[in-house]
Each structure stands twice: as C-alpha cells, then as structure tokens.
C-alpha cells in the first residue's frame, strides 16, 4: 500500500509532496521558503524523518518518499 507513517499512523503517500507542504497541511500555517511561518509568528514545530531531524530550512526542498516515517512534534504541557 502506498503510505507514509505520520506520527505513528498510516497516511496516503502522494508523490512529490514536500515536508513543507505536509507541515502546512497539519498546522494550517503558510510557510516561507525558509521554513518560517509566513504570518511572522513562531511555528513551534520540528520534523524528524526516518529518525533524522529535517531542519526547517530544508523542508521545502525535501520531498516525501514512499514508506517515510515522519514525526512532527511541538511543545505541550509537561515538566
């Protein structure tokens, strides 16, 4: 099946989709090429792909690949 793993669950894989597009789809925030939010606010999100960090500056240039395992994390209450 053509899927990626996103935060532990299977999602359809769409060829050509970038990490940046995935982040926008999840957060509803439009991103600049730098990976910063276009609205000027702090995004507060980080992405790990196949157990490696994808720096936000690389999001737009990183296409998803079949069976990728992605973790998108943010700050929550704790500690």
């Amino acid at each position, binding site marked *: 099946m053509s899927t990626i793993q996103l*935060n*532990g669950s299977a999602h359809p894989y769409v060829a050509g989709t970038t990490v940046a597009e995935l982040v926008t789809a*999840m*957060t509803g925030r439009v991103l600049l090429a730098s990976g910063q939010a276009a609205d000027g*606010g*702090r*995004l*507060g*999100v*980080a*992405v*790990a792909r196949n*157990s490696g*960090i994808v*720096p*936000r500056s690389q999001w737009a240039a990183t296409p998803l690949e079949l069976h990728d395992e992605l*973790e*998108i*994390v*943010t*700050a*929550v*209450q*704790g*500690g």
Partner: protein
Amino acid sequence: MTETLTRNDALIIDGVALNSRLIMGTGGAPSLSGLGAALIASGTELTTVAMRRYSVDGTAGANTNLFGLLLENNIRVLPNTAGCFTAREAVMTAELAREALETDWIKLEVIADEHTLLPDALELVEATEQLVNRGFKVFAYTNDDPVLALRLEHLGAAAVMPLGAPIGTGLGILNPHNIELIVSRAGIPVVLDAGIGTASDAALAMELGCDAVLLATAVTRAQDPVLMAQAFKHAVIGGRLAAQGGRIPKRQHALASSAMDGRPDL
C-alpha cells in the same frame, strides 16, 4: 514591594538574567487558561514544556497554543526531555526541541523507570556529555547526589537540578544535607527540582542555598493554583532573603533576648 526586594538579585544562567527564581513546569494543569493565570501569578520568567507529537484532533489541540501562551507573556521556554529512558532518545528530543522552539536550553531528564521516575545516572552523564558537545545549555535533572552533581558540572552542564523527592510526590526535601552539600561545592546554579509540596518546601530549598526552585504539580494540581502560585512566589523570595540574611545558629538551650540585669525587685 517584592519587585524592589529582588531587583538586584537576578539569577544569571548562560548570561541571561532571570528576575524570578521560581521556574515553573506546565504539567498537570487541567486547562490552558487556568495554567496561564497560574504562571502569571507565579511571576516566573522561565517555564518548562514537553515535546510531543503535533495533534490535529481535539485531544491535544489545546496544547498547540502553549508555546504561544508563553511567548505572549514573555516567559522564556525551557523544553525538557521528559519520558526519555536513554541518552539516545534524550539527545534526539533535545534536537527536536531546539529546532521547534529555537532555544539551545534543555532540561535534561533521563529517567530509569516509570515507577520511581528517578534519573538514570549513567544515561544522564552520557546525554549531558553529548548535548554539551552539540552546543546545548544543559539543565541536568539529577539525583540528590553531591558526587554526580559535581560530575555533571565538570561535563559542562549550565545548571544542576537535584530532586527534593521523586516527581509528583510532594514529599518535600528528603535529604536537606545532600542539597546543602551540592550547593556548597557547585560553581553553577543549583535548582531544586521535583518533590515540592507546599510553600515552606520552596522556602527551605532557598534557605539551603539553592539558586532557584522548579515545580509544577504543587501549583497545577493545587485546589487553587493561582493562590498557590502566589504562595510559591513569596516563599522563594522569603527563602532567598533568609539565606542572605544569615540564620542564627541552633542552640540546645534557651537564650533570653531580654537582659536579666536591672530587673525590679517584685
């Protein structure tokens, strides 16, 4: 009045001045708005958060605004590595936190098991070394072990955070002597972390010479979190002043404060 008392007594960590010596956690609060009110009441300028999966559904949706809440209130964020059992997990979590929150400060928490939530000393040392090498400012959550605390300092930790008692227990400071010993030998800030139950525990930590206190549950799960946050704010200031004021030595026998000479013959 409290502002006057603390104006010239900022806590400096990594070159950053914190005018409140109360570091807050955010765990255990039933609502984000209630948490915000308690944080403001506490006067804190540094607050911990955990790193977890971004959730688009309602369950953790409210949490996605936590970072915004802290930014709005000019509270510096201190991400933690809560839930990590190994150095490898902790380093990865720290990297994610640095990327997401744009800070190289990290509260390093590497726990041994879920029953005690006590730090795993070996993994903690390993993770501290790796994170320091990667340029992080490590706030090391540690056992109340004076030897380990000094080791962490020598590895390059920015602050050591010995526990008063296990996380969430509210048992207070179980080994005050060890805390004093840690403080007496430390060249970096010592933050009493975990186990605080009520205001007097925080005051005691400061009286023992700690540079700051970190707590969460004692406020977030209190019956009135805002009132308790105020109590801790004053307790930390009171304890700090007492530590600087110099307590009287303890004595076995009473010592009259009124002179015996010149008493009338009654």
